[in-house]
């Protein structure tokens, strides 16, 4: 079913890790154009490592990463950004000592100067709160505002795919919904999104999900299928 549709991102048997230790062992996923896919799995399974490997922060030891038919192996994060990969890490997703506007300037670091104002207006329309607080130091933002700033920062380059690593981690329940609604809105506007989901709410906004365990993709299913799987839900989201 997946193979028939146009793929934007593929990881083919990717092995990656830190220092001398491998964390991913031949992980393969395929993301369709304009879909919202999720990755779930226990802590230490390799979800963050997979996203880091796709964004170029980490180099794969084995396997291939293909984006829009182009092999990404050996490309720097800057080159991958230029190709259209936007990455929002789980922790330290903003520059806390910079103002909101300077964070957005960093998002547009490689953007031509003349396009900056246009993109700034676009992200301000999506996140009006950021316009109100543009001169405030980002470190003073609440968790939800930090996440919005992180998403806005990534959107400054108009990415074709957004990699979100646990975007609701550490947020209070009311903010979780707010952040996920924004992710859903972006997806409805045509943004391909790959989200690492650590709770049921985050999984529910996706269309399809991969379950990673011990560095390997052990299950791929629609979200409905996964939500019907009591064992998976019990194991990873506590019922």
């Amino acid at each position, binding site marked *: 079913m997946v193979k028939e549709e146009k793929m934007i991102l593929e990881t083919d048997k990717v092995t990656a890790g830190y*220092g001398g230790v491998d964390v991913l062992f031949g992980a393969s996923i395929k993301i369709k154009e304009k879909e919202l896919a999720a990755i779930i799995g226990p802590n230490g399974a390799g979800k963050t490592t997979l996203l880091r490997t796709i*964004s*170029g*922060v980490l180099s794969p030891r084995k396997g291939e990463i293909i984006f829009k038919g182009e092999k990404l192996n050996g490309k*720097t*994060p*800057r080159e991958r*950004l*230029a190709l259209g990969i936007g*990455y929002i*890490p789980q922790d*330290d*997703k*903003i*520059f*806390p*000592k*910079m103002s909101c506007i*300077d964070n957005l*300037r*960093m*998002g547009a*670091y*490689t953007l031509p100067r003349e396009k900056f104002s246009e993109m700034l207006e676009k992200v301000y329309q999506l996140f009006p709160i950021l316009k109100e607080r543009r001169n405030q130091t980002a470190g003073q933002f609440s968790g939800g505002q930090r996440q919005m700033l992180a998403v806005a*920062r990534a959107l400054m*380059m108009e990415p074709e795919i957004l990699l979100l690593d646990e975007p609701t981690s550490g947020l209070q329940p009311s903010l979780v919904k707010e952040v996920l609604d924004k992710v859903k809105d972006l997806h409805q506007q045509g943004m391909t999104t790959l989200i690492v989901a650590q709770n049921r709410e985050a999984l529910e906004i996706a269309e399809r999900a991969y379950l990673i365990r011990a560095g390997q993709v052990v299950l791929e299913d629609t979200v409905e299928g996964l939500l019907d799987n009591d064992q998976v839900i019990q194991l990873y989201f506590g019922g």
Partner: protein
Amino acid sequence: MGGWIVSGLVYGSIVALGALGCSYILLIQRYFNFTAAPWLALGAYFAWSMMRVLPQWRGLELIIAAIVSMVALGIVMTVADKALFKPLRKRGAPFMFFYLTSFGLLFVVRSIIWIIWGPQAKYYYSGASVGIKGPWGIMVTPAEILTLIVAVVVVATLYFFQYRTKLGRGMLATSQNSMLASVCGVEPETIHTTTTMIAGFVTALAGILYGLTIQVRPLMGWYILLGIFVCVVCGGEGAILGTLAAGYLVGIAEEVGSGLIQIPLNFWGISIQMSAYKVAISCLLFLVVIYFRPHGVWKGTFLER
């Protein structure tokens, strides 16, 4: 007292420039650059050698020698960074390795200076500098006025570069979160090269100004290394304006402190020249700052204002 303060400001300006070089390396590359001491001397010797070959014309030779020396030291420091520190960065080596490499390089550079230029003190210009009488009878030499002006201009330029240019923002971002900076498109090696070049420029300038106001000697960097260290800590790990203010604090504390202690020593006929022990005041200041304000005298770290 006025004379002590002016001397303190001059000395503080030199210390602040040296400290800025160390701060940049500390914040971006995360190690304290012990080699700052011989680099500072090397910058001064580069300029001295240039001055020997340039014809003298209204001080222009000094400006040319300073510019060439700054660029030359920037290049030498960058080559050393690429040869010694880049492999450590690539391997993700523990920071103790950076400190040890920096410490080892210190002795290599110091030895090279001794071999090439010898142990004798050298001067940019022969003959005593004529002082200008300022307000309250304070005597200031042209070299001291130049030092005060250059430090302020350099700090203002770096401040502008840091907050008004894309590369400066890239450096700020890298100092806060290098991984996030790289996913924003900042090339880490470009930042490392820029940092090392800037550190080279300001370190050479500090050496030249020290040589101009005092003398050029192989161990000149050692004499102010502790002051630089105190200045980096007091300035708040790289706050640009804070570092200049901390430099002034160190300079004035050393000059005024040693001058005030000298008064009772002279009164009681104790033959100790406090000017030789100025560095003890820096040590004391360092301990006080570390105890009461471990994050710096001024609020803020990491290339903040």
